[in-house]
């Protein structure tokens, strides 16, 4: 492969956003006929890099080359015209139109007087669909297709242009195994035609199955490229997180206090069923499971955002009804939500105002907000959590993910909760901030807080929890203490295997 020239080459790309250096001199090349994996943790800069390539962001430094020629991607249309095609994770189809119309949108074949040539359109579309071996035809309405088939339409759309490079962004996220096989066939066809393919995925198994080379990004920096046959999962993981995967378990146990929260037989429709557990003061209970296992929904119920259909919630031994977050907050429950930007922060507001938002009614001097008291709270948690910001006046939207998350955590710690629930506390934040937040959670337990940690990352759950509740499909499969838990038993439990036998 060394004798051919790259079809697409990125050289020293730099992209900064206020407060963050999203890409720091990233170089990366794709050969014709190569499947090149781009890997990195959430927030490593993969999507930013692809947006630069697609002309959505303009780089602050570096250059893009196609063949020998330097190109400027001034916008998505230009990128497409140059033969760079994106298959996005999120679909961008017009549901009310047919498959054919979607595929050729903007370039429908014409007859005289601008009339659409429906016959040619259907023929051309069906030819492409045949290649993809899908079970629908050109005249199907896109809204009637399954998500997986809609994705196939996206792929079909990519095949209509003379593609030089195709970028697949998590293409298998919503595909079944059979559909994956078809997709991989399509990819190998493209490969045989000399198209360069960039394949973004978190799934190691796929990466090792279909890619030729792997490039890794970490915190906006290029970590290197390796040939897929010459490496293994562990090495790639190490490149991604900068160290070996830390699967150490929490070994420190504090003296446990009283039961702060007890849940008995809680159910909420089809979301989760018959959930019972307790959390003591001084204890961190981890909730581990796949996305959709019902963990977030339990947290939302405890925070008054959902009505349970059955069961009881007891706080300090007293049964409570939580009808709204207002009730939950009044009862001393704090929730650091899963979606930091969507649920946790008002991005246009400054750091201080975000942090004191839940208690703004209580921080008053006469009719006005006591700004001095607010600044004092902000300063206290900025120091305690080591939040890096130019000052409390900085807009939260300009901070890095890790600092944003610390603002949310500070916001809820300053409420002095008796129960702190954190949902995916380190999603999309850098490695350094991650371990700080883990330390923080352990520290809170040491101070006597009752903490629930919901996480999809096994190292995180192992690292912070005194006990781990494994969930599968809305049910608790098994509860482990940190001394007895093993990776295997945990994975089996969240896959619906080898639990306590509670679930069928």
């Amino acid at each position, binding site marked *: 492969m060394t004798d051919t020239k790259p079809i697409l080459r990125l050289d020293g790309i730099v992209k900064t956003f206020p407060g963050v250096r999203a890409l720091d001199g990233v170089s990366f090349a794709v050969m014709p006929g190569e499947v090149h994996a781009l890997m990195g943790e959430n927030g490593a800069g993969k999507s930013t890099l692809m947006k630069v390539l697609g002309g959505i962001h303009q780089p602050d430094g570096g250059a893009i080359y196609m063949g020998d020629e330097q190109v400027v991607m001034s*916008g998505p249309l230009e990128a497409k015209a140059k033969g760079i095609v994106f298959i996005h994770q999120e679909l961008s189809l017009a549901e009310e139109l047919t498959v054919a119309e979607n595929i050729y949108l903007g370039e429908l074949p014409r007859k005289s007087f601008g009339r659409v040539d429906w016959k040619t359109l259907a023929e051309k579309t069906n030819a492409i669909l045949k290649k993809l071996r899908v079970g629908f035809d050109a005249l199907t309405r896109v809204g009637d297709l399954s998500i997986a088939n809609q994705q196939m339409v996206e792929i079909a759309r990519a095949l209509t242009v003379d593609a030089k490079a195709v970028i697949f962004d998590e293409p298998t996220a919503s595909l079944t195994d059979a559909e994956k096989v078809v997709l991989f066939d399509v990819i190998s066809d493209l490969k045989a035609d000399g198209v360069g393919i960039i394949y973004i995925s978190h799934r190691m198994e796929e990466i090792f199955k279909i890619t030729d080379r792997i490039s890794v990004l970490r915190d906006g920096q290029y970590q290197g490229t390796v040939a897929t046959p010459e490496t293994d999962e562990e090495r790639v993981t190490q490149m991604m997180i900068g160290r070996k995967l830390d699967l150490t378990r929490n070994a420190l146990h504090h003296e446990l206090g009283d039961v702060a929260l007890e849940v008995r037989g809680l159910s909420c429709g089809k979301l989760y069923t018959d959930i019972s557990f307790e959390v003591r003061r001084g204890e961190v209970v981890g909730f581990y499971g796949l996305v959709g296992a019902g963990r977030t929904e339990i947290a939302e119920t405890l925070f008054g955002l959902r009505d349970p259909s059955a069961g009881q919630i007891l706080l300090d031994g007293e049964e409570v009804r939580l009808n709204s*977050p207002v009730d939950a907050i009044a009862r001393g429950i704090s929730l650091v939500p899963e979606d930091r930007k*969507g649920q*946790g922060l*008002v991005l*246009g507001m400054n750091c201080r105002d975000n942090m004191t*938002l839940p208690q703004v009614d209580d*921080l008053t001097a006469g*009719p006005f907000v006591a700004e001095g008291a607010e600044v004092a709270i902000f300063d206290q948690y900025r120091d305690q959590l080591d939040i890096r910001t130019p000052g409390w006046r900085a807009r939260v939207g300009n901070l890095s993910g890790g600092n944003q998350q610390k603002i949310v955590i500070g916001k809820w710690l300053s409420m002095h909760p008796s129960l702190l629930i954190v949902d995916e506390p380190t999603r999309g934040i850098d490695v350094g901030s991650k371990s700080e937040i883990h330390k923080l959670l352990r520290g809170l337990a040491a101070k006597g807080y009752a903490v629930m940690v919901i996480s999809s990352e096994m190292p995180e759950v192992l690292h912070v929890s005194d006990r781990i509740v494994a969930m599968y499909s809305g049910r608790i499969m098994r509860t482990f203490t940190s001394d007895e838990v093993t990776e295997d038993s945990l994975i089996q439990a969240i896959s619906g295997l080898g639990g306590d036998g509670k679930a069928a």
Partner: protein
Amino acid sequence: MATLSKQKIGSVLAKQGILIAFAVFIVAFTLANNKFLTVDNVFSVVPASAKQGVMALGVTFVVISGNLDLSVGSMMSFSTIVVLDLHDKIGPFLAIPAMFAMTLCLGAFIGILVGYLRLNSLIVTLGMLSAIHGLTLTYSGGQNMDIADKEGTWFSVFGQGTALGIPVPILIFALLAAVLGLMLSRTPFGRKVYAVGGNGTAATFSGIRRARTVFMCYILSAFCVATAGLIQASRSLGSQNTVGQGLELEVLAAVILGGASLMGGSGTIFKTVIGVLILGFIQNGLLLLGLQFYVQYVVTWVIIILAVWLDIAAKRGRLWSPIA
């Protein structure tokens, strides 16, 4: 680097564009007509703007909360007609609180629909624009409303009186602007309005009662409308059913001109006051230039669109964004 600094200049231009445009207007009008920048003229512009200004204060709360209020014009017609009618029936002392109560009921109705039922505010208030107009006509039987004894009532003080040499409408505007400005910038309620408009979901997750906050914004807006209706009724002591027609757009123009984003979450009372004054001066300037008053309808809209464009451009960092 060249493109970077160009972008910066573009964004500064976009952010300050309204003030720059305002300065250009003032200079142009002053050169074209030497009456423009005189004390007399300035003193005539501000009272004329007071009514719109008072309404704009309330609408500022609504817009910051992430909603719209297009019903303020026809609601003001309603207030004006009602207070004039009741003036002769139950006397001004009772007429004023009765009119305020009725107007606040309309505001509460909108607040329930938009806040608690989460209906789209554009649709609700557009509907209310028409519905309240119908209500007003039903109330008045389609007749103009006049006070019988125009000379003998103290009711004229709100629109025509002066205190300390300053016209009362200006004093009302200034007082309300000060109170509502403090309410928005300094109280917990104001903070919640920004939070709800900036990110309603995050506000809910922070224990803020979103529906109640939106509801209160519409109550405030109705209160401001009632006050504007009082000024209007007191100025003219008689009125047509359509006296507030079209004011919703002028008011919205002033709020947007002041820089409040229609996406919610940003804007201030101070900026709205500036927006009201800019609009007032521009409209006055056009009249002084000898243009017919209806030209201002066109100009008002050009200004709204320009303001929205500059607002968006400032966020994007460039004026022109050809995204397909």
